[in-house]
């Protein structure tokens, strides 16, 4: 059986900067693959390749076992790969329902928008995801960060996404809001979607993840199934284990090691 999406030996460089080197990843239906890494690890580049914004310079990208070379996010979307960006997900000044259907508007004869149906669908879809929205006509910018993320995820699910790519969906959220989003990730998995969950927070990744890919400086640092790694190991990997120990030692010994340089 072939995975929903599969990347093998993928690399990408921008000019002489190597952003990604030899990264492989596979996502099956009903599986959450977490991609972890610090800033500059290559997470964004990986997303851009999966979502069709960029083409890889090396390696192969397959959807359902078929090699693909996406020219735009639209093409990726047509193959069921929907990306929910952290900041780019929505147009703040537009009403919730217009955002929900943006780029895939429902129309009646003469190109007229089917506004009633879009409003109703938005309300129903969000209610189905357990989002209690005051008013689908309010500008989406007035929603909380978690609600916005959920609207974006609900939108992707509604439009038949088979693979959800979530770019740091919990990064800017408080503890409770992040919990709301994680619950939707779990719900999407239960509906049989494949999820690529990009984050730098192992505490958010571990509860929902089935597989963990840790990137560092554009390379794969670790690629483990959930039963092959503990939360502490994941956290240590993320923080760079040895580096963290060094930092702890440095901070606890403040003033002793660096005194000589202070003059």
């Amino acid at each position: 059986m072939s995975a929903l999406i599969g990347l093998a030996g993928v690399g990408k460089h921008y000019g002489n900067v190597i952003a990604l080197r030899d990264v492989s990843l596979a996502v099956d239906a009903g599986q959450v693959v977490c991609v972890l890494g610090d800033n500059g690890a290559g997470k964004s580049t990986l997303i851009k390749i999966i979502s069709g914004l960029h083409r890889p310079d090396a390696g192969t990208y397959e959807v359902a076992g078929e090699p693909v070379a996406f020219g735009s996010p639209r093409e990726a979307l047509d193959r069921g790969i929907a990306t929910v960006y952290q900041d780019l997900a929505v147009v703040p000044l537009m009403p919730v329902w217009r955002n929900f259907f943006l780029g895939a508007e429902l129309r009646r004869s003469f190109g007229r928008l089917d506004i009633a149906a879009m409003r109703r669908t938005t309300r129903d879809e969000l209610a189905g995801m357990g989002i209690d929205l005051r008013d689908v006509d309010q500008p989406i910018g007035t929603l909380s960060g978690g609600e916005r993320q959920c609207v974006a995820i609900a939108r992707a699910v509604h439009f038949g996404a088979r693979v959800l790519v979530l770019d740091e969906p919990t990064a800017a959220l408080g503890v409770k809001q992040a919990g709301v989003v994680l619950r939707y990730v779990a719900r999407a998995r239960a509906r049989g979607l494949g999820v690529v969950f990009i984050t730098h927070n192992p505490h958010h990744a571990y509860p929902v993840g089935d597989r963990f890919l840790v990137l560092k400086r554009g390379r794969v640092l670790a690629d483990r199934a959930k039963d092959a790694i503990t939360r502490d190991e994941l956290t240590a990997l993320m923080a760079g284990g040895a580096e963290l120990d060094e930092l702890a030692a440095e901070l606890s010994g403040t003033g002793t090691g660096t005194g000589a340089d202070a003059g």
Partner: protein
Amino acid sequence: MAGTATAPARPPGDERLGRRSPLRRLLGRPELGALIGAIVLFAFFSAVADAFRQAGSFSTVLYASSTFGIMAVGVSLLMIGGEFDLSAGVMVTTSALVAALVSYQLTLNVWAGVAVSLAVTLALGFLNGLLYVRTGLPSFIVTLATFFMLAGANLGVTKAVTGNVASDSVRDMDGFASARSLFASSVDIGGVNVSVTVFWWLAFVAVATWLLLRTRPGNWIFAVGGAADAARAVGVPVARTKIALFMGVALCAWFLGMHLLFSYATVQSGEGVGNEFYYIICAVIGGCLLTGGYGSAVGGAIGAFIFGMTNKGIVYAEWNPDWFRFFLGAMLLVATALNLVVRRRVERSG
């Protein structure tokens, strides 16, 4: 928006819905500030200038509003889409010159000139859009460049072809009468002559409003102006939408150019410079956000009406018309400040 009057049976958790009252919704409309301004201004000029209250004067005000209003439609849409077009003023002249020169020099029916002018003007709009999309430069710079180029070409080509700074009169050419009746006639309504441009203006506004609120391209216009990257990410053709918006401005410029040509039969090649700012002012007074993503065609129309009222009201009030621009500037300041206050209040109260 429709559908606000019905109070749907919402689950009890939604008592928050009540916070957004119909009044708030009205306050949230982009054109509200302009509407209040227009009413105040109308009352003011009616009070201070007897001549302003006559029906004939009102028709003059409407005419002035319509010529700027037709352009404001295209410029408003473009601004909602997040861009400027500084070449809009001279493009009107270019469009009129092309029609005049082509039909006169080649001794064609003026309708041939009209058609060539349409093609050329749309091509110019396309070029503006293409340059913007391809270079990634701000539209301010791109259209500033085309503004100067067009202003120079208007003068240079006209002088080279006619040996004069104005085009030759097309008054006696075939098709002039029919073209004039379409672009520059007037209709008698209850003893008052109303220029046909007023009706064209209202039609333009109606079509643009429908386009913005009821069609897919309208949705895309708001999206590319509000957050182009987000729009691109969900599959909106951002480049195509922006190019189409520049071509929309060009279409309006062509129409106004035809009106001017068939009103006066001849075109002064130096005309139009500076008008682009008036169009932008109309859009901004009408509540279009300079940064894009917010506004309405109706707002732009109200902005143009305010413009027309001030323009003619000062004359009827027998003030020194030299001060017109001063008032215009002051109004721009007041209108944008008012819009800002209204919008902030609405956004805060959710």
